[in-house]
């Protein structure tokens, strides 16, 4: 079994020490860091994401795999930064103003990171202006907003409105999600996308990045 396959397998198994050691071994053997990233770490997380979508594994297993992937990334990061490897896209994430629930949002961030996206996580209780300002500042193609409270999810509308008001709708897409949300609500507030759960969010963001 080649090194990259072994790295992917250890990511799936959630073994950070093994992933770290194998990533270092691959670099020492002359494998390009971008190849270790794509063929090892992201390949492993892609399998994990697919298994999660098919409900063969569940969130804790995804997080263990993500932790293993992170340990490999730490090894690669200095060389990746030096080589300027392109990402799948940049996404600004946060929980809507007045809401401090962040688990769902964090999961989306982890899965997006695993799919090769550059994620800027603004945290919880984020005002609309901060979503839009950060997206502009970082050149993000997508803003992802999460809410758990029925009384705060209406605040997502303000973010969508602000993106339009500033004339950014053609280059910044807004995707919303959270337990109480429905696709109908997302459409009603004018969001560009809706994700039922963290797993489906990755696919929707990929579509939106293509559209941005």
């Amino acid at each position, binding site marked *: 079994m080649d090194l990259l396959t072994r790295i992917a397998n250890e990511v799936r198994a959630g073994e950070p020490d093994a992933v770290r050691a194998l990533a270092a071994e691959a670099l020492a053997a002359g494998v390009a860091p971008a190849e270790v990233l794509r063929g090892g770490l992201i390949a492993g997380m892609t399998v994990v994401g697919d298994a999660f979508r098919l409900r063969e594994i*569940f969130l*804790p297993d995804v997080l*263990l795999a993500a932790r293993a992937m992170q340990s490999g990334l730490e090894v690669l990061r200095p060389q990746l930064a030096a080589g300027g490897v392109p990402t799948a896209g940049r996404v600004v994430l946060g929980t809507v103003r007045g809401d401090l629930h962040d688990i769902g949002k964090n999961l989306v961030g982890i899965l997006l990171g695993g799919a090769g996206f550059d994620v800027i996580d603004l945290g919880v*209780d984020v005002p609309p202006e901060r979503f839009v300002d950060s997206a502009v500042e970082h050149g993000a193609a997508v803003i992802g907003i999460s809410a758990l*409270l*029925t*009384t705060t999810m209406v605040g997502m509308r303000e973010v969508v409105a602000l993106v339009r008001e500033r004339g950014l709708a053609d280059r910044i897409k807004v995707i919303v999600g959270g337990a109480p*949300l429905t696709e*109908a609500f997302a459409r009603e507030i004018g969001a560009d996308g809706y994700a039922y759960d963290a797993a489906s969010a990755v696919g929707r963001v990929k579509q939106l990045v293509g559209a941005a």
Partner: protein
Amino acid sequence: MRGTVRFAAREVVPDPGVVLLRAGIPAGIEPSARTRRLLDAAERHFLALAEPRGIVAELPPAACAEAVRASGRDEPETVLGRVLPLAEATALFAATLGEPLCAQIRSLTAGEDLPLGFMLDALASEAADGLGWRLGALWRERLVGAGPTSAATRVLPYSPGYCGWHVRGQEALFRALPPDPVGIVLNASCLMSPLKSVSGVLVAAAPEAHRFQPDFPFCAACATHECRARMLPWPDDGRTPSGEGEVSWIS
């Protein structure tokens, strides 16, 4: 009547099945061995760090209704607005698991150990939700036979942020409680710190008073309708206080 309660951490540990459900593992699915190890580790952290405590402050239903309406940002019609007129007794409550546990969750989820932080967060969220129910059960014990309540009376917690009651309602609610009740403070957005805290109104009423159809205008935008589960009889699943905690009532 006002009461403060200190629970033993082991008294408020939620059922593992409920925690796994919150952690995204459907009921009836056997978790992987590594998930089970995560849950065990999370429980150890919880028992070492949780400082569960709460306060109940009885307030006449009319005064409670006034405090609840004070946010000015509620939906025109709310669940609590429909339930309160049927209340036999009402009380404000606030409860928390304390800052040390919340700091540990922050530290773990910030990078120290995300999977463990996630599991501890799920466990703590369930435990925090349970505190409102536990306070309600303790308050009910005091009420039954002492007023207009009967053995059939049920006490349910209702919290700002849900079912039409805006999270800003917490501001008025905390004004009616003693300053920094049990160590909880509100930030500028009216969110509670420590994070794993709950607050709201305890409503003692006949069981049918708590039952309603999710037919409010805001229900159409809500995908969960978790309110329905609240109206089912509360099972004796171990969440009833065992009396290990320290309870002091001021009549």
